[in-house]
């Protein structure tokens, strides 16, 4: 090799050195290899009224921050706006995120759009409310049957055999409604008289009037179980107004400020509180794991707590009942 060529080579090498030094010193050269992940959370509602969804959102945002990924939160205005959620899903799929976390407003109607997401190689997870197909790679939420059973077991423990029990559910063909009812019924067993399930269509007023009707129609009614927040609020108002408030075994799902007072006053004997914060947090974490091709369980139970007047101010339950938003 000629000396001149060696000199050229040396200059080149020195230049390369300086270049690498420059890159590693002045900018995070190696972060170039790190990819940014985008996750979209499609909630049931973006309404700022529902505490449940605001907390779930909070959990998701915290998780995304902890993991260092981008999160976008969207959803229909109202929980029963299924068509809007479907079109939002279509838009989200267009934007090609790495993963979508869906809280399905409908058990069946969200299936085609979910399949589309999977077709486009986007990871799909469902949170709180699931879909009937197996397109979701991970389901994160309360195991509703178990939660229902927990509540049913409490009722069963407080009643005598043969007592009459009313169930107030929200939507006839929603998976959580069906599963919760199944859970309650299986825990109650055959030793009680269970009235036909009443549906409120997630409407507080309907819950109120239906409960009023039940109380009037069945004076022998010993227990009422309301299976979601809106139904519970409506039922609570009816029970509170009645002269049997505090006497009747009234149990609910979820809680809000009104119901907490009911719990303090002894009108609500117990409420089963879900953990929306955990749902949001874990959903994003699972999405992250899926994106990074880590094994993820097909379903995660975020758990629930049975809250009574006695344990409602335990420090852990304070956080569940009074989430600081």
């Amino acid at each position: 090799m000629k000396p001149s060529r060696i000199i050229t080579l040396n200059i080149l090498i020195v230049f390369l050195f300086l270049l690498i030094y420059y890159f590693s010193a002045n900018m995070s050269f190696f972060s170039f290899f790190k990819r940014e992940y985008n996750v979209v959370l499609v909630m049931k509602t973006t309404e700022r009224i529902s505490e449940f969804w605001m907390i779930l959102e909070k959990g998701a945002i915290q998780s995304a921050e902890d993991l260092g990924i981008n999160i976008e939160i969207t959803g229909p205005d109202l929980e029963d706006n299924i068509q809007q959620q479907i079109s939002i899903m279509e838009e989200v799929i267009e934007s090609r995120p790495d993963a979508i976390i869906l809280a399905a407003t409908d058990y069946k109607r969200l299936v085609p759009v979910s399949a589309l997401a999977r077709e486009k190689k986007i990871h799909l997870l469902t949170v709180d409310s699931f879909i009937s197909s197996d397109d979701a790679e991970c389901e994160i939420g309360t195991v509703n049957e178990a939660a229902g059973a927990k509540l049913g077991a409490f009722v069963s423990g407080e009643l005598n055999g043969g007592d009459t029990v009313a169930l107030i559910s929200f939507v006839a063909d929603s998976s959580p409604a069906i599963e919760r009812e199944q859970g309650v019924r299986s825990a109650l067993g055959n030793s009680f008289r269970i009235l036909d399930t009443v549906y409120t269509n997630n409407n507080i007023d309907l819950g109120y009037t239906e409960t009023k009707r039940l109380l009037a129609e069945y004076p022998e009614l010993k227990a009422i179980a309301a299976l979601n927040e809106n139904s519970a609020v409506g039922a609570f108002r009816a029970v509170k107004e009645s002269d049997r408030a505090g006497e009747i075994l009234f149990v609910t799902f979820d809680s809000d400020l009104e119901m907490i007072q009911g719990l303090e006053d002894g009108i609500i004997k117990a409420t089963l509180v879900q953990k929306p914060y955990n749902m949001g947090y874990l959903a994003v974490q699972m999405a992250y794991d899926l994106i990074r091709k880590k094994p993820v369980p097909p379903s995660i139970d975020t758990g629930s707590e049975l809250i009574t007047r006695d344990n409602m101010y335990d420090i852990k339950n304070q956080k569940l009942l009074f989430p600081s938003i």
Partner: protein
Amino acid sequence: MRDYSKRSSYSIRSQLIWTFSAMLVLEMLAFGITSSILFDRTLKENNNNYVSQMIFQMNGIIDNYISYMEDITSVVMQHEDVKDYISSTGDSSVRKALKPGIQGFLFSIKEIRKDLVNLILLFEDGDFISSNPEDRLNETFDFRHENWYLNAGLPFQKPYITSSHVQNLIKGRYPWVISISRSFHNQGEKEGILLLDLNYDVIQELISDVEIGEKGYLFIINPQGEIVYHPRQDLIYNDLKHEKIDPILAMKKGSLLSRVDDEDILYTFGSSADTGWTIVGVSNVKELLSGRRELQNFLWVLTLLTFTIVILISTLLSGRIVKPIESLRKSMQQVEKGNFDIKIDVQCDHEVYDLAEDCNIAIRKIKDLMLQNEQEQELKRKNEFKALQAQINPHFLYNTLDSIIWLIEDNENEDAVRMTEELADFFRLSLNKGREIIPIRQVIEHISSYLVIQQMRYKNKMDYRILVDPELYSYYSLKLLLQPLVENAIYHGIKNQKKEGLVVIRAVKEENCIRFSVEDSGPGIDPETLQQLRAGEIPDASRSGMGLKNVQERLHIFFGNEYDLFFESNPGKGSCIGFTIPLIKEPPQ
């Protein structure tokens, strides 16, 4: 001895590359490890210092804040109306009169401090005065069973401070607060407490701005280990996140390396004597050492690069060294094969060039020595040759002279003259002006003279034939080769025979040589001697034996070993001894 035949592993090139690489790797390893360790230590120390300082400041801020709130409780307790109200236990008219004033006083304090959620005087009998006149107590729960009521310190003691909790004291409101409570007594009996609820958000705001890297944060625990503030409180209560609180509580101040939730965490913490709270700084070790990762990555790239360069340079360098050596070696192999005429040119400018030059000088010297040696050998051979020639004639001369004397004595003058003439011819041809190579014609003339003399000496006892194609006369031969053979033939084949003997001299041209032979009609050679002769062992005890040996040696010396004597024998009928010489057309100079 070491076996150098497996050379590749010892080659200069691989040795250079290996040595350089090994040196580089060791050096880089040492550099990497020491710099990593130093870097780690510095990073951790810096972080510790930074976080400790931050915690110190934070403690100061919080202490300041809390002591300000404590001062408020003091102000309230010092208020004359409040004092009077407390001391008038059971006197409802006095209390009724004082209540609006106190209420207004509390209200004005709360107005100044927006971070106060509740400022309430609570009495053992269930009475209360709140800053907000609309407040109604939540009757579901008895405040007298709450911690902040039971544990409220005496007026002269430090107030009791709770951790963060939901305050359910006032109906319909469930704020997150930190409560400060202080009891008051009347005549030695606990009369009630002053409760001051701080908006939890304020504490949160004081602290949440503090950041320790991307993933680090601060949290506060009270002496009972309960969490006063934690930015990930939801995670903690939901069991998604954990902190190692017990060892921190035990140590109060310092730092602790721990592994929590699959992450390496560095806790740095300090306690405040005022509040009893411990502020804990949490640093993510992985993040903390991310600088080291970058350093390591850089070192890796550097090592890789240097490695490539080293291999490149050592390849080049070894090439520059090895190539001339290779060419030198090839040249030397030529020399080994006997080619001394090459000049080694290694085309380089370092030591190998000098080596090659030295080799050139050595080769030249060897060549000179060989030439010199050749010349000396030549001289030596000539001298030997001359000595051999000289051995041939004396006896023949004496015998012939004797014969001449006898001829003269017998008065056979004519024969004496002829013999003398032949003898003169014989010697003239023998000497031949010192020339060794003579035409075959002269060889034949010379041998004829010899045979004539011998025939005259042995009277009619022998006859001879010379059967040489005159075509061969113009070729050259070494002189005095044929004569000893003929002498031998006469001696063994004629001399002791009773019958007349015959000597036949032939010269035949063959492809590349001329074949001379001398036949006699004697008894032949006995098989044992023949075998010896053919093996080249010629006895030189006898004179004729000496002659044959002489011929053989001269043939060898002059023409080489492939030109040799040959022997044939037919027992009882005769023998034939001859030799071959190469075809020589020109006498050498």
